[in-house]
């Protein structure tokens, strides 16, 4: 895994996006283009997963789902302990930040798929289902931790904010990404192969090219966030690099030893565990933990962990998976 590993167009376009903002180019995507690309990608990856899942083992599928939930609950709890170490980060911000690490960044996951596709490496389709599952637990943990913090605060005479549990759990399970991914999975699984073939030029053919465009855009957004590093502070920036390393190692163990995936599939599980959501979780935290500062968690998830995973995590976790599996 040398330089070749990142010399694939999708990753290069991500780098181009970062460079564009670093040299202060006025390159700008029109409003909504990024959202449109991400809608396309979620549908395409969902359809792909659905077609393959139709022929998958039910047992292993359920096992994957179970372990996805475990990862979704476990990683943010580890993150919370780290953030609260010596009381460095206050409870609300710690809860909101760590929730992002339990969930998944679709952009990172897709970059990992591009890495495997272009390198001609096989991988299982179960991680796509796991990605759908991992939104909810992370959000729930974040809200729970914040609710506990509120109780602590009240005990010392602070004001009460009732956590709007019902609406937030609803949000966690019906947010746009989940609906698109799950819907496309089901549609891919139930549609006839002949029908799906008519959709392939759209969902498969242009997939890699659209992904390039998408990662270019995310590269610019990531770089824009990097400006807030100073404001966020070194300890948090360090957390944004340590946390994906911890998550990735746990993910490799789960993918290889528990689920028995190939090196490709194992790396995808590692990326699920290592990546931090910047689409689904930030809104949930903004609604559910208004006390936390949004610029902290957006900067960390998008400006630190995302580029780290795309440029370092993907090849690293793949190499480790190959080595671990033997």
């Amino acid at each position, binding site marked *: 895994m040398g330089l070749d590993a990142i010399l694939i167009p999708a990753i290069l376009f991500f780098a181009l996006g970062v460079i564009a903002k670093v040299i202060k180019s006025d390159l700008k995507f029109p409003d909504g283009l990024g959202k449109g690309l991400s809608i396309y990608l979620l549908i395409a990856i969902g359809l792909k997963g659905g077609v393959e899942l139709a022929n998958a083992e039910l047992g292993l599928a359920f096992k994957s789902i179970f372990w996805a939930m475990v990862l979704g609950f476990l990683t943010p709890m580890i993150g919370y302990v780290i953030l609260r170490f010596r009381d460095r980060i206050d409870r609300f911000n710690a809860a909101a930040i760590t929730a992002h690490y339990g969930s998944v960044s679709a952009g990172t996951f897709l970059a990992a798929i591009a890495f495997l596709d272009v390198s001609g490496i096989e991988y299982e389709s179960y991680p796509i289902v796991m990605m759908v599952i991992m939104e909810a637990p992370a959000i729930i943990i974040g809200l729970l931790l914040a609710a506990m913090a509120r109780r602590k605060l009240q005990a010392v005479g602070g*004001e009460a904010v009732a956590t709007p549990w019902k609406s937030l759990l609803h949000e966690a399970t019906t947010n746009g990404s989940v609906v698109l991914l799950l819907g496309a999975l089901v549609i891919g699984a139930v549609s006839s192969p002949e029908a799906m073939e008519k959709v392939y030029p759209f969902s498969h053919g242009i997939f890699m090219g659209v992904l390039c465009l998408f990662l270019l855009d995310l590269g610019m957004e990531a770089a824009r966030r990097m400006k807030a590093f100073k404001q966020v502070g070194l300890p948090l920036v360090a957390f944004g690099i340590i946390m994906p390393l911890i998550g990735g190692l746990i993910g490799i163990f789960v993918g290889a030893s528990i689920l028995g995936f190939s090196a490709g599939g194992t790396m995808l599980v590692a990326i699920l565990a290592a990546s931090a959501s910047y*689409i689904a979780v930030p809104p949930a935290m903004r609604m559910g933990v208004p006390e936390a500062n949004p*610029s902290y968690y957006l900067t960390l998830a998008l400006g630190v962990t995302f580029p780290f995973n795309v440029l370092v995590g993907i090849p690293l976790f793949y190499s480790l998976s190959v080595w671990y599996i033997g």
Partner: protein
Amino acid sequence: MDNLCNQKLVQIITSNILDTRIKKIFKKLAINSYTNLSVNGEGDSGLQSGHFDADSNVMFMVMVSEAKFEPLIAELNRDIEKGYHHFVFSLNAEVHSPKKCRPGTK
């Protein structure tokens, strides 16, 4: 000019994600007419560049009679006290659409 009414134009700038909270407040106060638009901005919660949902602002403009003005501000402030970052201000306006300020319609 007998068809003109002095009312309050309340403008509320907040995160896109909180827009249903604001609409619920309108509903609660039986405010059925409002205008809203996407805006960007910067403030205490950082830069809102409009790229992601969590990163976009919405601005509500709502023209209310004096009678509804104070309850609206009070409701919004209750939300602000909970930690939500709504930026709220009002302007004195004259409404010229005749139907929009017949006595008793607001």
